């Protein structure tokens, strides 16, 4: 393939290709995007696995994520420390899971993490209310919000504990017709 690049070793690129849904070209392009977020922080040479993490504020400014009401939660769920600081590996992982080629089960797992605002492994009413407010930019009245969230929990809750566990969420999302078509980011 064309020019010899010196950012990654061939072995690293192969590993990326196997572990994500991206090709070599796309990995290199992703590295370019990662680099231009903070050119002075991100090294051009990744052959010896440098330990470099970009903060949440920089990543959320990317055009692909900027308009997303859940941008903070997305970045936080892919970061290892939970605060939104992404290394390049986590950056690639995030876009790989959100790419069009990722299967439904994988996306469902991460969707659950994203919507779980208080990170308690349940989608409780407060999580749903926060989700709804972010979706509608707080244009619904509080009573309407409560009504909608109650109806949503009623629909999806299988075991009757008034909150959605992962099993409930997955059961509901597998029957949603456009989950796959909406839950992806093209980069």
């Amino acid at each position: 393939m064309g020019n010899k690049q010196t950012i990654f070793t061939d072995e690293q690129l192969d590993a990326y290709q196997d572990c994500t849904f991206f090709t070599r070209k796309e990995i290199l392009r992703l590295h370019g995007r990662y680099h231009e977020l903070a050119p002075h922080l991100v090294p051009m040479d990744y052959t010896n696995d440098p330990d470099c993490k970009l903060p949440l504020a920089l990543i959320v400014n990317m055009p692909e994520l900027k308009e997303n009401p859940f941008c903070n939660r997305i970045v936080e769920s892919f970061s290892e420390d939970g605060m939104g600081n992404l290394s390049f590996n986590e950056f690639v992982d995030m876009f790989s899971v959100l790419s069009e080629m990722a299967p439904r089960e994988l996306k469902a797992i991460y969707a659950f993490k994203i919507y779980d605002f208080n990170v308690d492994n349940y989608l409780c009413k407060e999580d749903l209310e926060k989700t709804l407010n972010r979706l509608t930019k707080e244009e619904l009245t509080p009573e309407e919000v409560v009504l909608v969230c109650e109806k949503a929990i009623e629909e999806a809750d299988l075991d009757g504990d008034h909150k959605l566990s992962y099993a409930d969420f997955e059961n509901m999302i597998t029957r949603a017709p456009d989950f796959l078509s909406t839950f992806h980011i093209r980069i």
Partner: protein
Amino acid sequence: MENKTVNFMRLLSEDSTHSTVSSDSCEYYQTEIFDLLPSIQASRPEQSRKPSEAYQDGPVPGEESIHGHLSSGPRDKAPTQPLRNMVICIQGKRSVRDRRKMQISDIGFWVSWRRSQSITMKRVWEQMGGALSGLLPWQHTLHAIEGRYGFGVKAYFVLLRYLVNLNLLHCALIFGFIVGPTIFYGRSKSSEPLKFGGNDSVLDFFLGSGYLDRSPVFYCFYTPGSLNMQCLNTPLLYLAGILTILFLTLILVVRRTTVGYKHTWMLGKQYSMNVSYKIFCGWDFTIQDPAAATLKHSFIRNDLKLFLEEQSFSLREAQRTLGQRVRLYLLRFFLNLLVLSLLGGAFYLIYFATNKSQDQGIPGERQWLVILVLQYLPPITISFVNLLLPHIFRKISSFEDYSFTMQVNATLVRSIFLKLASLGIYLFFIFKHLKDQSQCLENLFGREMYKLCIFNFLTAFCNAFFLNYPRKLLQEKYPSSLLAQLWGKQCFLVPFNVLDLVYIQTVSWVGVFYCPLLPLIGVVTLTATFYIQKFSVLRCCVAEQRMFRGSSSSVLFHFMLLLGLLMAVATLGFNLYQPREPACNHRFSCGPFGNGQNVFNVTGVCVDSLPSPAQSTLSYLNSSAFALPLILAEIIILTSYVSRGRANQKAIERLKDMLVMSSSDKRFLVKQHTTLLRRQRNPCRVRPAAIEENQRLPPES
């Protein structure tokens, strides 16, 4: 608490909703016994226990972790599960990959070769799939439209593209069966030459007479040529071509209808009422444009408001008193009478226009413009009626106090009836008139269909450029003027535009026997319509504020397509079975079935030439002795499918119950175990709760 009337609430066990010791949901996943449960063990390999695994982010028992149980350690469930699909961070995947590579040397050459082959094949398939989807025309435009105007408008353009593809298929079949043989084997010697003659003019392209009358566009061109075998001659090929087209279209449309029906109606609850889908799948993550994002926010908000409105409507409906109900039904009855009278008036207009246009008068007496207008009077009337009445129906249905979706569907049903019935009435009156004609009947009929198609296209063109665009300019330049306020901002009304599409396609199907190049004209006009509508949507329209439920209406659209096809088949059958006056045929032998032949003669000759077993089989298939067992067999098959579906539904309900009960059993047992362990460790702490605990412990403990 138990057994609410909502579908998904099952029998609750009390302990799944509260426990005496801890109400913290996290604790359930941190208990020691949780890690020992067989279902959790099955999703973790033994390696996760080793502390030397550097990139483990699974929970050590008892320790809280951010990722919880979802990404518990590197999984290598199945060695052939693709690395990408695993729910661990990239470092974990890398270590799994290294481990697998090391395993390769243990596995042996054959297995590793197969694995690498499957990986390569997967990559090749992915690339091919990507290339094929890139070939779909106008994909980029559709994506842009969906981003700005939502799913409903995109569905219109998807249907348009589907119809273009369908018409291309028709063109290919027509070329193969009809035009091809005529080109290769020539026509009969008595047919007229195809040259620009004395009386021809440009007007012929609009009227379908003169030059166009003799051209391949119409039926009369295809006289039997040198291909004259018993079972392979031009007339038979012509008939076979048309029948293939109709049959193939029937299969495709039925398939599309049933797929849509299954998808929307039979997947348990109706999608439209599922708020959870709206919340979790509502936001389109591909949106990057701030304007599109604002639009999406308002879409979601409107959707939810619509849902809430429907909820309050059903509440209001349930609370109607008897007096209110009686008044409402009376009002609806009168409005329906109004609708019927409007329909009757429309049909009378069409009858009047058809009569006027068939009154030829002395040729040359009138100016060409008058002739043009008179000839086009029926299409003009039909288009006018089809343009005006659906909007009136829309207004009427808003008085009938239905929910918004029901209003849209009621308007749609009335408009569908209007369009199909107006076409049917027009065809009926044409038949009556043409019976007295002495010219080639088929050409006259084809001419009418041709005029309908051309005029539809002209209407769409003028609508976009002379109605929508000035309206938009008016809104922009003088937004406060009276006209702008009256007219309002225009939105792309999906239901009416889809109806137009289906209507055009029905006309094309009705006319394909008499005007074989009609699908080609259809392809050209539909492609032009795509760009015209794209201009209209992107430049002139704003996004509609009130979205309707697309799912139930799309089934209606496909059903209307099917109805149109059935109407075309019925018209064709009726026409073919008409007895022909021999006097007409003697003078004007037109088309493949001229010269005293009709469909039955030609097919009869072919059947007679077949070997006798085939003949007897055919005659058996024709007889009623075959029809009855066929109907019985179909009934039996249908019954078996329906009963199987019902049994499956019952099994699903039972399994759902089982799922809920076993998960609440699991929670109960885990909590019990935890409290017992806790009591063992801190005997003094839980004394107040111990008394209640004793009462609730199961007998086995």
